[in-house]
């Protein structure tokens, strides 16, 4: 009896909470692909998917069914275990980060003290899925794509780290709930506007999205690191990439756009519950992701590296110093 009380029931509650988070997330990922095609279609004066179901709403499910019914191909020269491990790793990493994202006050799976560091750690692991798939495929295109992506992700991680430090200086805590609560008076996007821009652009590079999607540059590398993958293993990469996009938008919202807080703490705005605000803000950031993809041409590789190391790194370092200086001078240190 005691065993059931101490282990089985809490375990079941945790599993139920995880399912309550992961299932809507996967639906969101499916509809993000749909949203992307609709938005880019509208920007290019097309209709986008509109055949399957009303307004094409069942398109993501049709795509998923198509991928599931395809054959899984294992290249003969591939390192089988690592080849199969890589997509799983990418997908798992894109899900576990959600454990610390707060949807409302107290509405979080694990409210840990070092939430931001956990997110940073998980996002820095994302590169392994890419490197492992590129190497295990035993194909030169996949390997080139993997090397590009690894170099890119490591470069932009550095400036993301400094941006996070700037935010932490203003909050005085690594806990994500505390970071959101610290934005009650003003969202950090306003006083730290340059850092917000740096963070958003670095997030684009970190998730390998246009205009920094060199790892999957169609014109020169076919499809980059997952060129040898098919069927479900490809679908896992795809899901992982889009879940990462939503995750990076979520982090942007938590760090800079006040998380679940209403934009103004007055009548019509604070009637809306927190999670709704959070989801609306994430959708807004995701829309900008797609807008950027439809608008900008791809960067050249040396320009990408220059932007990361010679522009963002000094700029974010400077802002860390300035923010710390201002906080100490005016005695605002939390």
């Amino acid at each position, binding site marked *: 009896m005691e065993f059931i009380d101490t282990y089985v029931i809490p375990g079941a509650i945790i599993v139920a909470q995880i399912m309550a988070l992961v299932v809507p997330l996967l639906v969101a990922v499916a509809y993000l692909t749909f949203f992307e095609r609709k938005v880019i279609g509208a920007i290019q004066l097309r209709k986008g998917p509109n055949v399957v179901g009303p307004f094409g709403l069942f398109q993501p499910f049709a795509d998923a069914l198509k991928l599931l019914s395809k054959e899984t191909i294992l290249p003969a020269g591939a390192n089988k275990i*690592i080849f199969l491990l890589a997509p799983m790793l990418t997908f798992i990493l894109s899900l576990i980060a959600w454990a610390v994202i707060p949807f409302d006050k107290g509405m979080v799976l694990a409210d*840990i003290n070092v939430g931001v560091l956990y997110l940073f750690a998980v996002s820095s692991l994302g590169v392994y899925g890419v490197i492992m798939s590129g190497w295990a495929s035993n194909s030169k295109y996949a390997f080139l794509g993997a090397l590009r992506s690894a170099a890119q992700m490591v470069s932009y*991680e550095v400036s993301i780290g400094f941006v996070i430090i700037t935010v932490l200086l203003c909050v005085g805590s690594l806990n994500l709930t505390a970071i959101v609560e610290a934005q009650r008076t003003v969202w950090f996007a306003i006083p730290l506007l340059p850092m917000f821009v740096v963070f958003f652009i670095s997030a684009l590079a970190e998730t390998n999205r246009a205009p920094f999607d060199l790892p999957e540059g169609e014109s020169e590398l076919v499809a980059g690191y997952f060129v040898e993958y098919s069927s479900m293993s490809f679908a896992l990469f795809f899901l992982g990439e889009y879940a990462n996009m939503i995750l990076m938008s979520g982090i942007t919202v938590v760090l800079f756009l006040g998380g679940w807080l209403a934009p103004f703490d007055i009548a019509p705005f604070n009637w809306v519950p927190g999670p709704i605000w959070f989801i609306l803000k994430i959708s807004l950031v995701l829309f900008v992701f797609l807008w950027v993809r439809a608008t900008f041409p791809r960067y050249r590789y040396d320009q990408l590296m220059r932007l990361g190391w010679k522009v963002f790194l000094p700029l974010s370092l400077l802002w860390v110093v300035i923010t710390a200086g201002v906080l100490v001078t005016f005695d605002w240190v939390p």
Partner: protein
Amino acid sequence: MALQALVFYLFAFVAVASGVMVVTSRNPVHSVLFLILAFFNAAGLFVLMGAEFLAMILVVVYVGAVAVLFLFVVMMLDINFVELRQGFARYLPIGGLIGLVLLAELILIVGVWSFAPEVAVVAASPIPQDVTNTEALGQVIYTHYVLAFQTAGIVLLVAMIGAIVLTLRQRPGVKRQSIDKQNLRRPEDVVEVVKVTRGGGV
């Protein structure tokens, strides 16, 4: 508590097993991946001890940065395993001798190891509940031992500058892109509109 012990043994066992696999696996890429697994389990052990900051830093620094570069290099290497194993029997005696010497030294050190009497008092004192371990580490590094921290920083800076100086070489005739120059170009300065007369050429 039983659960905690179980998780501890899981992490500890996987850490040791992957450590063994690092030195025994034939493929160097597999070795690095097992090394990463070992780091992970060490991070898990830190979390069990309540040192969550150290656990996260271990993952960020070692797994997220150092091991990535390591994997990068190892993947690029073209290692011939047959050639690598050729002199195995010839080098075995001297290798074994060095191993024995190291083992003897380790045993000598561990044999005479004893804790200072103050350690027992410090270790027995309760962990303050109101200070997170991020804050406590910050206090130690940036307040109590700030001079040592700054010295270590300067040593690292000098090492970095040294590495840059050693590898820097100026090659003549390299064309570089200057983004500022490109942005400052105006059509008036570089484009000349010419009225071409018939038969006259430009």
